[in-house]
């Protein structure tokens, strides 16, 4: 597919940035340090990004972890499409890549990485998907933005920014790899 060729859609005029490129880099660095700290050296950490943008965030985090620990950090992707609980509400979506690092996840500390934590349903699906792939020692969650409004008992272990929002607002993460620039935009839902 050619969606990486598509220029980022122009945002509604009232969409305002809440994190800019340097902020994003900074919070990822902080999260990397937190992971090392909590995982006691991060020697069994596997990072799994949730497509699309979670994968890029996972790769960036891995790079930072490698700088800190001077070790190779396994990083992969986990597509949760076929585990979603809202499949029957939409036409089927194109699948994204699930790419589990060669040594697998059994007995490892898996850190799931996503851009925005909202209802928690994506993470629920990710936990189910993980269950079919192996048995990690523990699973943790890192997100760039937590915008609240959880519908399931799920919380993040590492949060880049807590962003209180209303349900009428949208949170849009843009990353250079996909969108040509790094930013997090808070806007109003179309038509509101």
């Amino acid at each position, binding site marked *: 597919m050619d969606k990486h060729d598509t220029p980022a859609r122009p945002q509604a005029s009232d969409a305002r940035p809440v994190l800019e490129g340097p902020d994003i880099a900074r919070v990822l660095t902080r999260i990397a340090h937190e992971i090392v700290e909590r995982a006691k050296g991060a020697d069994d950490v596997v990072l799994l990004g949730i497509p699309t943008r979670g994968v890029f965030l996972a790769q960036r985090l891995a790079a930072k972890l490698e700088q800190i620990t001077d070790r190779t950090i396994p990083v992969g992707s986990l597509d949760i499409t076929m585990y979603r609980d809202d499949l029957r509400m939409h036409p089927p979506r194109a699948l*994204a*890549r699930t790419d589990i690092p060669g040594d697998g996840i059994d007995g490892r500390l898996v850190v799931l990485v996503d851009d925005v934590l909202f209802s928690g349903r994506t993470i629920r699906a990710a936990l189910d998907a993980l269950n079919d792939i192996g048995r990690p020692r523990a699973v943790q969650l890192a997100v760039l933005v937590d915008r609240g409004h959880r519908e399931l008992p799920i919380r993040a272990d590492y949060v880049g920014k807590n962003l209180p929002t209303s349900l009428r607002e949208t949170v849009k993460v843009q990353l250079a790899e996909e969108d040509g620039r790094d930013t997090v935009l808070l806007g109003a839902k179309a038509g509101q």
Partner: protein
Amino acid sequence: MQRHLISAADLTRDDAVLILDTAEEMARVADRPIKKLPTLRGRTIVNLFFEDSTRTRISFEAAEKRLSADVINFTAKGSSVSKGESLKDTAQTLEAMGVDAVVIRHGASGAPYRLANSGWIDAAVINAGDGTHQHPTQALLDAFTVRRRLLGRDAGLGQDLSGKRITIVGDVLHSRVARSNVDLLHTLGAEVTLVAPPTLVPVGVDTWPCTVSYDLDSALPKSDAVMMLRVQRERMNAAFFPTEREYSRRYGLDGDRMARLPEHAIVMHPGPMVRGMEITAEVADSDRCTAVEQVANGVSIRMAVLYLLLGGNEPAQTRTEEK
């Protein structure tokens, strides 16, 4: 995509590429310890087989089960030409049991089309081979195999088969595999050549989007893939060709002929192979022959088709269909 999959000709290029890309992801599930996805939980699929075809039924069944669908197998064994009424009645009986999709194999060309369009049932209909008409999932798995081998697993993603030269050899007249492949490969941009004795090419083939040749040897050096069709020995009795030996000599693929293929070219066979007839053991067992791979790919393709037709509240949309 349309609600039913009756003919390979019903697929647009984007539909077909989406199916192949989806199948590529489905194939990765086969490498996992737990080869199961919850996607079709609660969906009921019936495999309605009026014609014996263990390999196709098993392939569909494996795909359905990997997607967690509830599977009912119905095999109308022995009824070579089952009465029309029983097709309708059987279908309606199954519908009454709350079936979401019917995978149908039938000896009569058009039976799946009829099932999908006669108002007998509401379920989605997937054609698993009808008479000498179509076998769309076979064509899809063949295209998938070609793309993987000629372009590569990852490099092939999002790609069609533009410019690839595919030669299909054998009993085109009686082959639903040939019809489906001509349609699909053409849609995907490939150049298709049919090679057969003139008796085994249908009258009217001149309107098909392919070229026809009676000479295998001249077609081979210009082929990126050569697809051998099964030739039933009984055809000999209806004067389609004089003897098995003459058929093999003129249209069979042996080691010498395989050597005329370009180095990268592959040899395909939908199975079951008639060794010694259209293909020699030497070719069938060579690294270039993808017959076994095709079987594995069949499960991935059928998973993809089932997911894209049944995974949501309506069939998947491709870019051209999005509003």
